[in-house]
């Protein structure tokens, strides 16, 4: 409960601060609040999502200039006259403009590798800065003055102390929305962006959409901060919206602790106060005027990245005794399940699949068929091309030639996300879990497609009913694979064998009719293997089709209904386990030929 007390204490402090602090300190706190709003957006974008933007100050500027122009405009053309004179219209137009620009930039750059977004936003940031400075109607470099004060509930906000409450109320709302978002179905998808894109896509997450979403949210937070700024200062010019300010915002997020929402507030506070302080005495020290604080910031940031890459917040939280996180899963109505196909019906068919990597032929004319209610094993020596075949079938990779049919539909050129929707789910040979997330949350990513509530309801936590059902389902699958005791531990703390088992739970959360398992028994102990075999038999009994890559021959031979053997990318044998075991080509592949 400690955290709740701290939060209450923090809010109480915010409530009395303006009454105790001097005018100067209230102004400083106002700025920290304004910067925090932007920095929270960057934490979501950079710290959690692993994307980077140098355009945040430009979004702040868009929000600021939109309201500055509209609320002071006297010469709007007739059709647009209704937009003028009101800060609220300014806010609305600012939000629309920002959303438009962010969508465009996001769509342009987010499909490319990660470093194009920062480069694209640098260009956007510089362009907008020069536009602000050169457009006549925006006042050029002198800017726009005479912006009206905000009036809220009949109260005119001319005083910094009144504004303080408005700014910090917005800060708290922004923090609340962001924390809510991260603790939801959409939030798990967002947290998978950093280091789990392939996995998330295979679980049906549209990662490109998630990226655009967080870029949009971060931009809108910037816009709102800019709107507040304009009405606090009652004056805007291009300077506070330059690339340098964008860089400063980024520093706040990184310094505070890029992955922690509250860290944004710490970062904004530290940088703002430090800057104030350095600007006072560095020019005296050097005997010249200039923005020398950037030297210190530069060194400080390199030092932080080298020594404490997670920033200040995790260091602070270590000082506070941690409350144990929620350790119960609330019972909820089970999610609806899809009816499984009748046993014996063909689920998956691969016809003459060829996969080339440059000159290397990893799969050559592979044919394969899996029926509902059977376990099909794909075996072969290391490097035979089994995992490549898995990737081609599940859409993680695309076959160079040939056809893959799933439930009678051609899926050869579909993305893994689309294939997941059709009812195929898989595990990975090299475990792809999000190490810092709990076992339960990792499993819940598998249930992504069984929920439908999107970003807005997640941010407002209006999706709690659905979320409960998703988590209950995840808990059920975690229990089913025998990991109940580690449900709330970080996935990265599990032994490798258990991590593989967790991947199966995640795949089962998707309610699939075909399960692709890549070496599920590797790293398991004898009893665990038996339990796994039991589980797979049970799933088969329920009518699920299972395609299995495995090296453990005892495990395969006792379990599989049919076996396909691969060597050098080609199928060398197919049949019942006993037949395959006697096949001379198979024996040669495994044991080597006799000269």
């Amino acid at each position: 409960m400690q955290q709740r007390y701290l939060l209450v204490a923090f809010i109480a402090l915010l409530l009395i601060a303006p009454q105790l602090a001097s005018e100067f300190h209230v102004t400083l706190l106002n700025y920290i609040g304004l910067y925090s709003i932007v920095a929270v957006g960057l934490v979501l974008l950079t710290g959690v999502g692993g994307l980077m933007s140098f355009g945040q100050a430009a979004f702040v500027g868009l929000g600021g200039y939109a309201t500055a122009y509209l609320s002071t405009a006297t010469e709007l053309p007739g059709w647009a006259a209704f937009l003028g004179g009101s800060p609220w219209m300014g806010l609305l137009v600012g939000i629309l403009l920002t959303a438009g620009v962010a969508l465009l930039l996001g769509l342009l750059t987010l499909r490319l590798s990660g470093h194009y977004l920062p480069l694209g936003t640098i260009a956007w940031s510089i362009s907008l800065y020069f536009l602000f400075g050169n457009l006549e109607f925006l006042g050029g470099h002198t800017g726009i003055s005479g912006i009206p004060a905000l009036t809220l509930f009949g109260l005119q906000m001319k005083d910094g102390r009144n504004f303080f409450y408005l700014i910090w109320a917005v800060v708290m709302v922004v923090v609340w929305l962001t924390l809510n978002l991260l603790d939801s179905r959409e939030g798990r998808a967002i947290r998978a962006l950093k280091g789990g894109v392939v996995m998330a896509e295979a679980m049906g997450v549209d990662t490109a959409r998630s990226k655009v979403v967080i870029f949009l949210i971060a931009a809108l937070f910037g816009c709102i901060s800019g709107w507040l700024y304009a009405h606090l200062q009652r004056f805007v010019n291009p300077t506070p919206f330059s690339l340098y300010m964008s860089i400063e915002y980024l520093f706040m997020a990184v310094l505070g602790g890029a992955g922690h929402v509250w860290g944004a507030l710490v970062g904004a506070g530290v940088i703002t106060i430090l800057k104030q302080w350095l600007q006072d005495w560095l020019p005296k020290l050097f005997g010249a005027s200039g923005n020398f604080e950037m030297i210190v910031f530069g060194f400080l940031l390199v030092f932080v990245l080298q020594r404490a890459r997670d920033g200040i917040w995790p260091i602070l939280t270590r000082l506070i005794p941690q409350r144990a996180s929620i350790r119960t899963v609330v019972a909820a109505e089970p999610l609806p399940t899809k009816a499984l196909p009748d046993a014996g019906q063909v689920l998956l068919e691969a016809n003459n699949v060829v996969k080339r990597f440059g000159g290397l032929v990893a799969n050559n004319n592979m044919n394969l068929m899996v029926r509902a209610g059977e376990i099909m094993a794909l075996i072969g020596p290391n490097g035979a091309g089994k995992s490549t075949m898995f990737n081609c079938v599940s859409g993680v990779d695309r076959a160079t030639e040939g056809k893959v049919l799933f439930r009678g539909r051609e899926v050869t050129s579909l993305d893994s996300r689309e294939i997941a929707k059709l009812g195929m789910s898989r595990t990975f040979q090299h475990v792809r879990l999000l190490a810092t997330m709990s076992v339960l949350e990792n499993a819940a990513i598998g249930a992504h497609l069984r929920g439908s509530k999107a970003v807005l309801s997640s941010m407002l936590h209006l999706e709690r009913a659905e979320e409960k059902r998703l988590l209950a389902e995840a808990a059920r699958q975690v229990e089913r694979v025998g990991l109940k005791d580690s449900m709330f531990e970080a996935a990265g703390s599990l032994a490798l064998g258990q991590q593989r088992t967790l991947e199966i739970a995640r795949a089962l959360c998707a309610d699939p009719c075909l399960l692709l398992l890549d070496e599920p028994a590797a790293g398991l102990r004898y009893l665990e293997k038996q339990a796994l075999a039991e589980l797979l038999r049970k799933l088969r009994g329920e009518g699920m089709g299972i395609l299995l890559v495995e090296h453990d021959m005892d495990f395969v031979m006792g379990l599989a209904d049919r076996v396909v053997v691969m060597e050098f990318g080609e199928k060398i044998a197919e049949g019942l386990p006993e037949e395959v075991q006697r096949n001379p080509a198979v024996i040669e592949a495994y044991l080597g030929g006799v000269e």
Partner: protein
Amino acid sequence: MDLQIALLLGQDGITNGAIYALLSLALVLVFAVTRVIFIPQGEFVAFGALTLASFQAGKTPGTLWLLIGAGVAVALIDLSVALRAGHVRRIPRIVAWNLVYPAAAAALIFLVKPNEMPLLAQIVLSLALVVPLGPLTYRLAYQPLAEASVLVLLIVSVAVHLALVGLGLLFFGAEGSRTPAFSDGSIVIGSLTVTGQTLWVLGASLMLIVVLAVFFERTIYGKALRATAMNRTGARLMGISTVMAGKLSFLLASLIGAFSGILIAPITTIYYDTGFLIGLKGFVGAIVGALSSYPLAAAGALLVGLLESYSSFWASAFKEVIVFTLIIPVLVWLSLTTRHVEEEE
């Protein structure tokens, strides 16, 4: 606009474009070898130009103090690492490069009067001060994070950029400098007068590109860099030190940067923060080459130079806007033609 002006603007554009091309090559090189997006490239441009200007004004350039300071810092770190690991044999080398070299440079500058020396000697001296800052920066800022993600390295780049711009302001002040042209001559082709400086820029750029090409094709170090760019792990398994590759690529980048600054200083006034915009225009070129193709990057950079020069004629207030929005169609093209499944971090 008549033909005369068009030709003049074209000449300007190609001159600047040649500089951007050099920078874009360096950016592609550094990114390929180290995965660092080298934002501070522009600071080396400014440092090169301003160091030369300081010599000509008879002042001691602040980059000397930076060289000494960075040298001492690297020496302290490397010596403590070497002593802890018991590599006593490394010590003379560390001392020589990081302490003796800067001290020798300082002694030379105080003994000779650089402002009375011929231009060529001044240029060599400027390069001798600025170029070693590249590998020193790599050692101090990037090497401890060499295996971090592109994102973290990018944040480091921004931090280094800020620190260097601030130091530039401290060393050289807020006033800009312009150096005299390498030659006053000019040649007349038809109705067009080509200034000597333009010929110098084009000639020197071409020469540098040829030298780099020979370096990468013919020398063992050039091949080592190419190998590292293609496959870091593979190169390391073949005995190529990634630390060496990193320092060498930064050395080349700071050489190209400082040299570009010296070339461009007679054409434009250089301020402590001018380098950033120049470097970013190199970036636009590099992005045209998708951060991987040298010829495309150079062509893109030339395009940037021409675009800038013609737009400064028609809409001079918006020339930066026009240049930087050039990357939007490029990004559209790249995003339509690339399909990649890539795990980042």
